[in-house]
């Protein structure tokens, strides 16, 4: 039987270099194609390749792309739902890097393109439930946050993960308005951040993220209200103390640290037992942990969810 000769290890191209070449070639191809069309690469969403399909959300019908782009809360670009779509073009997403720091053994700043080539991208079709009682189904492209955290090795005393959005009022005019204490901040318990459902999304519908949806990289925690899934992240910090997130800071009685989707915990402004799915008429029942109860309930065992809302 003929056996294919095994090449000596010195001849194998190391994976990072191999991937750099690939992304270089991809970039060249894309640049040529776009150049031919007279488009600037910064303006266009690019297709993402090498995505693993998963069966998350197989039974769900994704919300149309136009609705995902045209109906969003991204107060850095204005408070109306259509504001992000209109103003997010001012955001410069290339180059972009994410600094992972704090209580980790090897703090590091990653360029977004390195994250894309280093971690396996997957499609995850998740429900998104906004605290304002509307919902969508979004086919995210991303990688598990735990992969990134493992790469920097959290130290033993790290308990919480804090995320920060870019702070630049020039690019994000909504930050001129002090509705919130900018930059936008969110936090997770380390075990929540390490949960396999928690992803860093870099795209949706097989394309890089639209700017109005938090390009180039954002957090997605599908069992929590949408405001936890912070957009356009530039900093991830591990720490010992529980952080205060932006909404929690201005209205602690309305927005808790956990913000788990829970039809039984009332909010003074929005009914949380039901929701309106964008694109549908009528209302749906809101599911405990947004339908991810069997996966995440264990994280909150023994906790009073009325108190830790």
């Amino acid at each position, binding site marked *: 039987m003929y056996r294919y000769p095994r090449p000596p290890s010195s001849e194998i191209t190391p994976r990072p270099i191999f991937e750099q070449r690939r992304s270089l070639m991809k970039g060249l191809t894309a640049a040529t194609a776009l150049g031919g069309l007279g488009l600037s690469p910064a303006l266009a969403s690019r297709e993402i390749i090498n995505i693993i399909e998963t069966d998350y959300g197989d039974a769900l019908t994704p919300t149309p792309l*136009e*609705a995902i782009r*045209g*109906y969003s809360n991204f*107060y850095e670009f204005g*408070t109306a*739902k*259509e504001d992000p779509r209109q103003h997010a073009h001012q955001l410069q997403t290339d180059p972009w890097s994410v600094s992972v720091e704090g209580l980790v053994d090897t703090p590091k700043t990653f360029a977004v393109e390195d994250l894309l080539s280093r971690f396996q991208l997957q499609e995850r079709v998740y429900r998104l439930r906004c605290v*304002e009682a*509307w919902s969508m189904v979004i086919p995210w492209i991303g990688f598990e946050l735990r992969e990134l955290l493992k790469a920097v090795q959290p130290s033993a005393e790290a308990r919480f993960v804090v995320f920060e959005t870019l702070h630049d009022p020039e690019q994000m005019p909504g930050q001129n308005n002090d*509705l*919130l204490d900018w930059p936008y901040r969110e936090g997770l318990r380390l075990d929540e951040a390490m949960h396999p459902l928690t992803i860093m999304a870099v795209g949706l519908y097989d394309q890089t993220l639209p700017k109005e949806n938090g390009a180039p990289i954002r957090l997605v925690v599908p069992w929590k209200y949408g405001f936890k899934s912070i957009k356009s992240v530039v900093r991830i910090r591990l720490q010992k103390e529980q952080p205060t997130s932006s909404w929690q800071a*201005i209205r602690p009685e309305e927005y808790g640290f956990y913000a788990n989707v829970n039809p039984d915990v*009332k909010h*003074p*402004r929005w*009914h949380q*037992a*039901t929701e*309106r799915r*964008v*694109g549908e*008429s*009528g*209302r749906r029942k809101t599911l405990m942990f947004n339908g991810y109860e069997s996966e995440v309930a264990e994280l909150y065992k023994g906790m009073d969810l009325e108190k830790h809302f």
Partner: protein
Amino acid sequence: MPPLTAPLKLTAMVLGTTPLVTLAWAWETGQLGFMASETLIHWLGKLGLGALLLTLTLSPLSQLTGSRLPLTLRRQAGLWTFAYLTLHALAWSFLDMGGDAALIRSELAEQHHLQLGLLCLTLLVPLVATSFRRAREWMGLLPWLRLHRLVYAAAIGGVFHQAMVQKVIEWPTYLSATVLSGLLGQRLIRALLNRLTRES
């Protein structure tokens, strides 16, 4: 009746109908965004509150200009207010709540901004019912005027309702709060001045 009354009333009728027709057109042609019912409900509410504040502007306007013309529009402005706010409540009940009586009841039982909104709308009902001349004559001017002071409670409640609905307070609320404070302030000063002149 001043000679301009009829054309003015007709103009007001057209002005009152225009936003409604525009909204209906925008609804039909899908111009109200991805959550059209929400946009519609908010617009009806804003227009209703705007009409209410406009109604309260007519009497100071009359005092300022020395003309009775603005006063002839008060009834119509008040009725438009009621029409828009009733549509606002109906749109919420049927488009947002899907006409589900149990859901509407549970929402009203829990949410303070809804209770306040419904209370304000209810306050307007006796005013609409007594808005015609016969009712005023039958009641007598003074009791009628006293009853119609309810409009101030409805306006104050309406502005609070608008503020409570929002996640963060924005300019439409600041605008209506400022206009309302101005209108209430003007009436207060006028009442104080009247008392002083009567005493002296």
